[in-house]
């Protein structure tokens, strides 16, 4: 029986369409295959970071964490179980972060997840409803509200506290000076401003710019015109060093305090050259590129692990060591936990006392508390052209 012309063409189209549609869902998981919960197998830890997009420089935290987890696996894992680290890209976009978290929580059966920055604030309600702990590499103040969001913890100290410490140092060192803040137009700047002002520092000028805008001549001139002689600089990326160089070029020399996460050797101090001499920062973590730590055994281990597990290009980045340290804190909490459930992990995280960590400055250690954070102290430091020197704080 011949298939008539009338049926053949649409049939061909239908077949083509169905093939395309089936191909489209070939990557999907069948409902009855989607696994949930922690089995006896690998411990699944999810990580969603900005591996691409305008804030991709922050993505190296994922590389650092991956290196640490890989070494832990090489040494036998946690309680005999290997860690499966699922590293996903969200390009700092909340939609993609939401999708990633759904996948990690619902499909990959993650025991806990890690995320970076502001977008992680918005994902807390969902993770609470799924009872999946999150360790956020973020300093935003909302993360200290553990009572409202009991499943979210932050690895970084509260930046309002950093602002407070920086503010009181600047106020006592340079009394009567006019203070200014040059930061990004995201959620970070309000917390920083709040912290600085809570120390009694009055901000004469606050300017916000978009990330990755390197030519900040107009903004610097505006600060100069306002008479700012103490500046908190938090623009990040290439702009951080560009601003230092520009100020040196035009003969504008305010006292500069760099935001702790943007005071790296590789991206800020070296490119700025002599213009970086005399800048301050508050610090709680080591910078692997700082000559001070060249012989530090933990930093050496970090560098070796980065090389071993394919991340040698990021071996001297501050944020990479930061991510490595976050992973170390997570593993420490898992090791000390009564069991590998969400509640067990959280209980252990909050009970850490005096635990060492490869990312921390020598006399600091991890201590859990009611705000869910592990680090509460900063050291004020000054760059002498070669390395950071500790300043005495009141």
């Amino acid at each position, binding site marked *: 029986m011949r298939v008539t012309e009338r049926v053949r063409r649409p049939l061909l189209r239908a077949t083509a369409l169905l093939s395309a549609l089936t191909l489209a869902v070939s990557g*999907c998981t069948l409902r009855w295959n989607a696994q949930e919960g922690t089995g006896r197998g690998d411990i699944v830890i999810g990580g969603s970071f900005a591996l691409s997009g305008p804030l991709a420089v922050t993505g190296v935290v994922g590389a650092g964490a991956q290196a640490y987890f890989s070494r832990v696996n090489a040494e036998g894992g946690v309680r005999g179980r290997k860690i499966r680290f699922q590293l996903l890209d969200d390009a700092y976009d909340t939609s*993609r972060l939401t999708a990633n978290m759904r996948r990690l929580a619902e499909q990959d059966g993650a025991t806990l997840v890690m995320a970076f920055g502001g977008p992680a604030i918005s994902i807390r309600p969902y993770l609470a409803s799924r009872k999946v702990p999150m360790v956020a590499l973020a300093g935003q103040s909302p993360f200290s509200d553990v009572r409202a969001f009991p499943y979210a913890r932050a690895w970084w100290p509260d930046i309002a506290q950093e602002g407070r410490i920086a503010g009181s140092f600047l106020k006592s060192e340079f009394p009567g000076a006019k203070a200014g803040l040059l930061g990004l137009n995201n959620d970070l700047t309000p917390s920083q401003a709040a912290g600085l002002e809570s120390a009694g520092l009055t901000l004469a000028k606050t300017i916000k710019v978009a990330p990755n805008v390197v030519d900040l001549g107009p903004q610097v001139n505006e600060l100069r015109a306002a008479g700012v002689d103490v500046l908190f600089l938090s623009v990040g990326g290439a702009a951080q060093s560009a601003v230092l160089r520009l100020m040196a070029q035009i003969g504008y020399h305010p006292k500069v305090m760099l935001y702790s996460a943007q005071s790296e050797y590789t991206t800020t101090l070296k490119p700025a050259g002599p213009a970086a001499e005399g800048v301050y920062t508050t610090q709680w973590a080591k910078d692997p590129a700082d000559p001070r730590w060249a012989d530090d055994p933990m930093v050496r281990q970090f560098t070796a692990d980065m090389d071993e597990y394919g991340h040698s290009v990021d071996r001297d980045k501050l944020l990479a060591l930061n991510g490595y340290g976050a992973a170390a804190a997570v593993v420490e909490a898992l090791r000390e936990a009564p069991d590998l459930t969400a509640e067990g992990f959280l209980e252990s995280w909050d009970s850490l006392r005096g635990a060492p960590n490869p990312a921390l400055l020598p006399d600091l250690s991890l201590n859990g508390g009611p705000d869910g954070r592990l680090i509460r102290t900063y050291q004020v430091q000054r760059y002498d052209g070669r390395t950071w020197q500790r300043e005495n704080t009141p």
Partner: protein
Amino acid sequence: MSAPTTASRRSLPWPWIAAVVWALAVPFLFSDYDLLQLSRVWSVALAVASLNLLSGYAGQVSAGHGALFGLGAYTGVLLVGEGGMPWPVALLGALVLCLGAGALLGLPALRVDGLGLGLITIAVAALFPLVVTRFESLTGGAVGYALGAPPLSAPGWTGLADAQFAYLVVLAVCGVAVLGLRNLTRGRFGRSLEALRTSSLMAVSNGVETRRLTLTVFALSAGVAGLAGALNALALTLVTPDTFTLAFSLTLLAASVVGGTRSWAGAIVGGAFVTYLPQLMSDNMGGGSSGQWAQVAYAAVLLLVLYFAPRGVVTFVRAGLARLGARRTREKTA
């Protein structure tokens, strides 16, 4: 030999029937996470379809549909979160608000066209996240607005999971909307648009009220884009200003071109392209460099489509199938 064209027009639309059956089977086959992704695909496809109406059929430029999508998203979420309204009301509210916004956007289009209009829409797209962040008390600012409970929750009598219900709602609304747009462009309205696109002078001389038509098509396109945004936001239960940047508007344009600016099926291809490509790269290229590979792949696909299939992927495939069918017929008669 049997007469080809008139017969095939009256034959059953097999492809669409097959697609509908497949789409309805999906929620019972795949995991909740995949259903979320597919809901995103459908809602982005609807936004691309609205852009197709404006660009492909009416010949107007818009690099600002990301902002309209975002406006709909915020409206939908705020109506549910702050206004306590049920989701159908939120969707309707988003549609109506964006209809109005589209009419406003159409006003400059009456005076300016082409490059000038493109620049105006770019400005709108660039300003949108900044304006949203500024009204922090209403919108939650840079951190965004999260809904506590999922608004698209399945009523008890259906026995469906929330993700399944949400998917079906998104599918139903997008399906009805695209069908509506398709019928609109095949009727009298479509012919007027065609006239407007070809030459406004010719359109006027044929009795088409060009000013009213332009405003109407802008309003319609914006309304549908806003509806798509509201659907997307209600499925994700979260909105942030960073999602609706100028880059997103340009992504929608790229998706429209890749699928085919006059193709409704192409809108679905575009939606899938936007949602799945980054994920695909991430899964296959491994964590670290996947972000860069996604951008490379994006650019490569766009270039290839523009070079080999300038009218879009769907048109290209259809033409290929037609040639395949014609060749078989010729072989038979030879």
